[in-house]
């Protein structure tokens, strides 16, 4: 379960003054659901997810993940969250096994547990061939699989994906999408950010459209189609953010 309540995050920028990256955002993601956070670049997706993962502290508002408060029980939140982003890379000089074991240990798992889970994950993700090779020699697909195993080693109840398919080839992207669905089917709470409309249509149970730091609309695909009188996700998105002019203006900032 993820409950975001009035999350706001401001940054100070020397040139532009105070920037509100996330503005009064509230939403709820339930176990067994994929919540899709859809927004253009710079809309505030990454900041929102970093707030949830306790990498950043909100300026105001609060969030509860897996029953823990992000502000006061940050370590507990991180212990129950798996965070996968384009910006969470692997240690190139470690092997996949060492990488995953390291994060198992950081999560306080016993070596025997790590070994058992690692073997299971390696089988599921088909990564036995490269488990003992160094990560800097990996293909993108191998890297993504290792990252996924890293996020899952502590069996978190909440999964946060920040544009996980960004820059990936079709096959790797498909395997990620399949994996995200698997997480939902196992009853995990999943939040998934993207700017790719088709992905949202395909996998998200609930869609939140974020624009200029604000959550402008929220609902299932059917609800959104009805609300905006459009069937195409892209058209829904443009209408939700207030037309193309608003989108262009936001991107200029």
């Amino acid at each position: 379960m993820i409950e975001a309540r009035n999350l706001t995050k401001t940054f100070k920028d020397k040139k532009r003054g105070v920037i509100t990256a996330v503005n009064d955002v509230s939403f709820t993601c339930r176990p067994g659901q994929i919540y899709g956070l859809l927004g253009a670049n710079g809309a505030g997706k990454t900041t929102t997810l970093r707030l949830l993962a306790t990498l950043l502290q909100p300026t105001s508002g609060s969030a509860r993940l897996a029953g823990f408060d992000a502000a006061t029980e940050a370590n507990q939140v991180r212990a129950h969250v798996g965070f996968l982003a384009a910006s969470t890379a692997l240690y190139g000089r470690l092997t996949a096994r060492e990488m995953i074991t390291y994060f198992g240990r950081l999560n306080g798992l016993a070596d025997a547990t790590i070994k058992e889970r690692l073997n299971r994950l390696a089988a599921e993700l088909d990564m036995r061939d490269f488990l003992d090779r160094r990560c800097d020699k990996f293909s993108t697909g191998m890297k993504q699989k290792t990252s996924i195993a890293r996020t899952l080693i502590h069996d978190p109840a909440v999964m946060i994906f920040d544009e996980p398919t960004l820059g990936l080839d079709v096959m790797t992207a498909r395997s990620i999408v399949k994996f995200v669905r698997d997480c939902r089917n196992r009853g995990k709470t999943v939040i998934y950010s993207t700017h790719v409309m088709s992905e949202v249509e395909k996998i998200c149970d609930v869609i939140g459209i974020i624009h200029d730091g604000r959550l402008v609309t929220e609902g299932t695909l059917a609800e959104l189609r009805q609300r905006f009188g459009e069937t195409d996700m892209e058209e829904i998105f443009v209408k939700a953010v207030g037309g193309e002019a608003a989108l262009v203006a936001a991107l200029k900032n």
Partner: protein
Amino acid sequence: MNWQNILTVYLKELKDSLRDRRTLISMIVVPTLIMPIIMFGVGTVISKVMQQAQSETVSVMLLGGADSPGVVAALKADKKFRLVPAAADYQQLISDKQVRVAVELPAGFEASLTGGGVQTVSLYYYAGELKSGFGLKAVQDFFTSLKEKTIETRLAERGLSAAVIKPFVIRKQNVAPPEKVGGNAIGGFIPYLIIILCFTGAMYPAMDLTAGEKERGTMETLLCSPVHRINIVMGKFLMVLTASLTTVLFSIVSMGVSAALGVMYFGGKATSQSATSAMVGQAAEGGSIPLIDPVGLIGVAALVLPVAVFFAALLLAISLFAKSYKEAQSYISPLIVVVIMPAVIGMLPGVELNAKLALVPILNLSLVCKEMLSGVWHWDYIALIFGSSCVYAAIALGFAVKMFNREDVMFRA
């Protein structure tokens, strides 16, 4: 703080760093090789060049001297000199290094030796040019000996003994024990080297473990783990400290081995020309590698520790601010000068430890090491230096932890 987590982070960073060629080079290869290279490489070259310059015959141009056949013949007979014909552009020839020294004998020089008038022999040379300097000395020796002979002759003519112009002689006697000489001479150099290596050893891993991780995107991965940030800082800090101390350890061991081999290689009196002597200055006049008080080395090690902590924490905090490895380099590189300056000042003769200087970081270490290595133990200063270094180290470590907890530093856009 959770020691289990700190250990986990530390062991991972250690493994990671040991697989990194650049860290290995800065931590092990450079400190191991730097001393033998300085002592044997540079030393051998310098002593070879010096020997060659000294053994070469000196090309001397004689200006005038047509009416002094005796002196000219004596110069010609001396195997050290090779007389070249006089030329008008002798100054240019000396500048061009074709002639090392020109000697101008005044008219009637030889006659005046018996006659009694004061004459001037002019020697032309090129100051700062090694070979010309040697040539000058050889020619000077020749004329000094001629002068002495002339004096003796004149005294004898007047029936006086040579003792008339030699009322007494001066005898110098060194009372300092060998390790004191060594301490003073290399006591300044060893701490200098240790301080520099302590800093450079920490430099690379500090940048790699912070800015490097940000650049490669692994920092965010690491921050996703439930480990409290203070444990991450401590684990990384211990790795940087390990690298720094390993660098120092390798350099000290290498220094000891090089010194021992140096004694064997250069032998007793040959040392006076070796690099060892160039390095240790007056100590080598004794003709051997100066002894160092081993207890002094233990003292140095004890006082280096808080300074290494200070460097490691400070470098970690500063490079953490950088977004990329390159940016970190541009912050850190100028600091080398800041570190070298007090280390060099400490090496200067005459700068002595006092209560005020004992509070100046780095300089205090440099000065106290010089004392300890020469067997002087000012316990009050040592306590003051250890104490102040620990305070500086704690402040730097606190600064590093603070930086790790600042999200505008960790996620600088």
